[in-house]
């Protein structure tokens, strides 16, 4: 089993979720995160003094799925999340040794 961790722009969440839904991936977990990368923050002025806002709001999407579904899933995510502008985000794939569905204690791929 593999885990896809995708960092995407917040307003893209709806599209990415639908894209994954279309290829039959129903389960995912989403976290609000703050990203810092080549997409620089911007400077703001408050009562005459400047300050930079460098952490930008992003969404981290985690999907655990069987190995054979990884490429299809990441392709779907890329297609939905891509705007071509800087800061579109990243996809990281890591190996998951085991997974369990708490409700039924099913293990492995069945648990997803």
């Amino acid at each position, binding site marked *: 089993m593999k885990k896809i961790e995708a960092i995407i722009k917040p307003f893209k969440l709806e599209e990415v979720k639908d894209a994954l839904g279309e290829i039959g991936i129903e389960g995912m977990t989403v976290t609000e995160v703050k990203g810092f990368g080549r997409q620089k923050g911007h400077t703001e*002025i*408050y*009562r*005459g*003094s400047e*300050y930079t806002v460098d952490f930008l709001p992003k969404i981290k999407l985690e999907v655990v799925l069987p190995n054979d579904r990884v490429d299809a899933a990441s392709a779907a995510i890329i297609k939905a999340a891509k705007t071509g502008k800087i800061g579109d985000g990243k996809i990281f794939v890591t190996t998951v040794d085991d997974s369990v569905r708490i409700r039924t204690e099913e293990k492995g791929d069945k648990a997803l």
Partner: protein
Amino acid sequence: MIKKFLLTAVTAITLMAALSPAMVHADDPKPDPGGVTTGVASDVPGFVVTAPAELSDDDKKDTNKVAAYTDAKKAFDDYTTQSKTEPLAVKLADNVGHNRVAINFMWTLVTGFLVMFMQAGFALVETGLCRAKNSSHTMSMNFMIYPMGMLGFYVCGFAFMFGGLGAIGTMGGYAGLNHEITLNIAGHPFGILGWKGFLLQGAGYDTAAFALFLFQMVFMDTTATIPTGGAAERWKFSAFMIYGCFIGTIMYPVFGNWVWGGGWLAQLGTNFGLGHGHVDFAGSSVVHMQGGVIALIFCWLIGARHGKYDKNGKIVHPIMPHNIPFVMLGTFILAFGWFGFNPGSTLAGTDLRIAVVAVNTMIASATAALATTLYMWWFKTKKPDPSMMCNGMLAGLVAITAPCAFVSAGGAALIGIIAGIVVVESVFFFDRIGIDDAVGAISVHGVNGAWGCLSIGLFADGTYGDGWNGVSGT
């Protein structure tokens, strides 16, 4: 532990004193706690003609004094005979006087309630402009200053400030508060401190004195709340409680006595012919400048909040407001309360100038808010800044507080514009020299309080103010 026993002892004694009904000296005017004898025919302006004071022997040599005396005597006699033929009219006059005094009471009380509500406005503005993690602390400071200040004023502050006020003209003319400690320097009387009406007892236990207490107390609380804004986010709560004990008892009343309690600043006119002496209709100097200066000292002494300045005093992280809707709701509540602050200072609903005072207050707040917004937008930071909009409106309100009854609408507009620009410059100035003022209290209340006092001289148009501080002519 001793601290606790000490304080419980002190409270016990004050309460004993508070409950024991202090006696009233025989020759003093009788207080009227039940509100039954206040408001009679003598309160109807121009109705009752009183007998003129007997002339002393040498007065009698002065012909026009004699002439004046005879005229007054004749008027008094006519009045007495006529009142015999019109007993019903005279009886009615008592009720007309009572109605007039009731109107003044109601105006003073309702405007006093509005000023009390400004505490909520200050609390919201300060909490909104500070960080979320300090919101409980800032709110609690603003909350507790209200009872602390009030009790200080109740125990001795009111007596110090208005002990020697004399007759409360608009509310039944009660003159029981007649003991002012005065120094005689170079032949002129310098009023320093009042000394009557402690714990609102004896001479203080009178409906007019209570109404005055309520009105003046909420004014004192406005001064007390300003420093909690300036020095927000870095003030230990226990240290704040100690400050709370002194603001209502000593700091505010002493200066207040000098300006409003018949003290030496008010006597400058009669003593040294300096016009009407220190004129301040609703308290730009007494309330706001004093609050601003105290805020300045606290910010200076305590120093800036961590992280705002780097070593060499350049602003690295401006500390951002956590809740703009709070700030603007608070400013609206303050603008709403200010309608009680300025028009209420006439202590008389029957003084129809209240309409002009209210409109002047409104116009100055509008021009100031607009001036600040446009000045920031076009000349300073190229973007409208919500928190400065609020500071602008408050600056206008503070500046118009002193001149509000003496100027025309045009004057009020101009005072507002200048206040709006002055506040922006002074916020930037204090930031630059390293004094970290969390809400701009020093600029809004201190600097604009001063500007308010100056503006009376510049813009007064002579339509009001005759006989102010005992000096005739506007």
